[in-house]
């Protein structure tokens, strides 16, 4: 299985790559300016976190829009990757009710693929000033925290998944399981 990590400038992009390598996936980090047709054959993409305020700095998210338009395979958006996914499909983001930096308690609303086999509540690591305010049509919310209503979401029409928190960071409980679950979804998609 080949899953590339799109680098949106986040501080933990390298950790996303490390987790995938640990899970024995062929992976590499690609700049978010890579044209879609130069990515080559992949089974999935991970849109990394990043610093941009996606509401006003979408230009710094490079070709993420093209990836979402053209991908006929699963995509996982993390943090800024999730926020971009939300705005790309007609949702919106804005300043968080309370910016989350550090540990937060996650409450799983829908198990779906991402949260199979993990508890309904567990701690995750966050690092965001903004959050998804309006979920795009055709997406459902999978999890929330005490102050952030949209901590995870997925498209009901395509294999697009997104999390606001950082599963690649050791301080996120069950982070590795979430990545494993995403890879299982990729396998199922390709069957």
């Amino acid at each position, binding site marked *: 299985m080949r899953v590339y990590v799109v680098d949106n400038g986040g501080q933990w992009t390298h950790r996303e790559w490390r987790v995938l390598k640990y899970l024995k996936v062929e992976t590499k980090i690609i700049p978010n300016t890579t044209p879609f047709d130069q990515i080559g054959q992949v089974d999935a993409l991970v849109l990394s976190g990043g610093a941009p305020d996606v*509401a006003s700095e*979408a230009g710094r998210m490079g*070709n993420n*829009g*093209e990836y979402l*338009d*053209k991908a006929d395979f699963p995509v996982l958006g993390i943090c800024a990757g999730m926020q971009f996914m939300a705005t*790309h499909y007609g949702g919106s983001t804005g300043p968080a009710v309370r910016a989350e930096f550090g540990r937060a308690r996650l409450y799983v609303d829908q198990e779906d693929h991402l949260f199979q086999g993990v508890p309904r509540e567990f701690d995750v690591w966050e690092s965001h000033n903004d959050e998804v305010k309006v979920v795009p049509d055709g997406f459902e919310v999978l999890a929330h925290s005490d102050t952030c209503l949209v901590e995870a979401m997925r498209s009901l029409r395509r294999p697009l998944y997104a999390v606001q928190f950082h599963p690649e960071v050791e301080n996120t409980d069950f982070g590795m399981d979430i990545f494993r679950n995403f890879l299982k979804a990729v396998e199922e998609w390709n069957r």
Partner: protein
Amino acid sequence: MEPLNEGLKKVLADALDKRRRDDTVENAVSREARRAGLRYQDYLDIMEAVRVLSRKDKLDPWMAAKALLDQQ
């Protein structure tokens, strides 16, 4: 790449005209394409034309959208 037909050009022109603050080109084009009752493939065709020009001439996507309309 084939030039855009009149219907698609109008959608692109409307996207430029009715652009909202913080819109990406994708946001604006998809909104106008939906309003015009176009299909998803039409949106992809418009965006492909914009992206190809943006890369070829190293333009920001909005500048590429404007240049595309000026060209055609």
